[in-house]
């Protein structure tokens, strides 16, 4: 039924605008994109601003607890959030990132590397925002291979034809 519809007129489509590049924010777009693709949806992901971090050849994603009012991580048997004055201290962000990465591994959650690989394998269309590349003075060679470049109109054309358009 729908798997062979991949390029047929009945196939559903989805676009995701990816604007954030921290470790926690990397998950929603890649999980939704890869799952949709696995369900026969034609997926396009448009990476802009800090989303470009997720396309770097070597991923070095970080998380911060600073200003993250809802972040309460398991620690010493309870869920704890730290006051911002603690989160500001040198090394605390790096510690939070390590903790999150350990939790991810422990709970059998996929790494972003793995999800990104799955996205490429599923032939999700990946577009990097040309303007952001210029703005932040990145080179296309900093990004993984197979990334198309485009602007807002490129995104808009896809979005107008899609069943689901998400802004993450």
């Amino acid at each position, binding site marked *: *039924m*729908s*798997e*062979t519809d991949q390029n047929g007129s009945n196939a559903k489509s989805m676009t995701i605008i990816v604007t954030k590049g921290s470790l926690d924010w990397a998950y929603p777009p890649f*999980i939704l994109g*890869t*799952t949709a693709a*696995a*369900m*026969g949806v034609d997926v396009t992901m448009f990476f802009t601003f800090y989303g470009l971090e997720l396309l770097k050849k070597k991923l070095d994603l970080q998380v911060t607890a600073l200003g993250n009012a809802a972040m309460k991580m398991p620690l010493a048997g309870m869920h704890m959030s730290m006051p911002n004055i603690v989160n500001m201290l040198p090394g605390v962000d790096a510690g939070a990132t390590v903790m999150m990465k350990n939790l991810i591994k422990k*709970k*059998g*959650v*996929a790494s972003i590397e793995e*999800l990104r690989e*799955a996205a490429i394998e599923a032939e999700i269309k990946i577009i990097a925002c040309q303007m952001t590349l210029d703005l932040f003075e990145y080179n296309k060679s900093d990004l993984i291979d197979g990334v198309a470049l485009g602007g807002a109109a490129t995104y808009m054309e896809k979005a107008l034809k899609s069943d689901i358009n998400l802004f993450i």
Partner: protein
Amino acid sequence: MADKTLDAKGLNCPLPILRAKKTLKDVPAGGTLEVLATDPGSVADFAAFCRTTGNELVESTADNGVYRFLIKHVA
């Protein structure tokens, strides 16, 4: 028995679905894939996956924290 078995125990969303989709490619039309998972969310997920892709969820059972799904690959 099932043509293929996928052990997705210990894996969290979305890995059970992604791995199942990948493994299904190697299951001939009409054949079955058995998936074992420990992620409780996978119960609803596999039902939704099958409804959306047209594959048939032949069985969905649980035994002591391990969920077992039998999926028939409908081409």
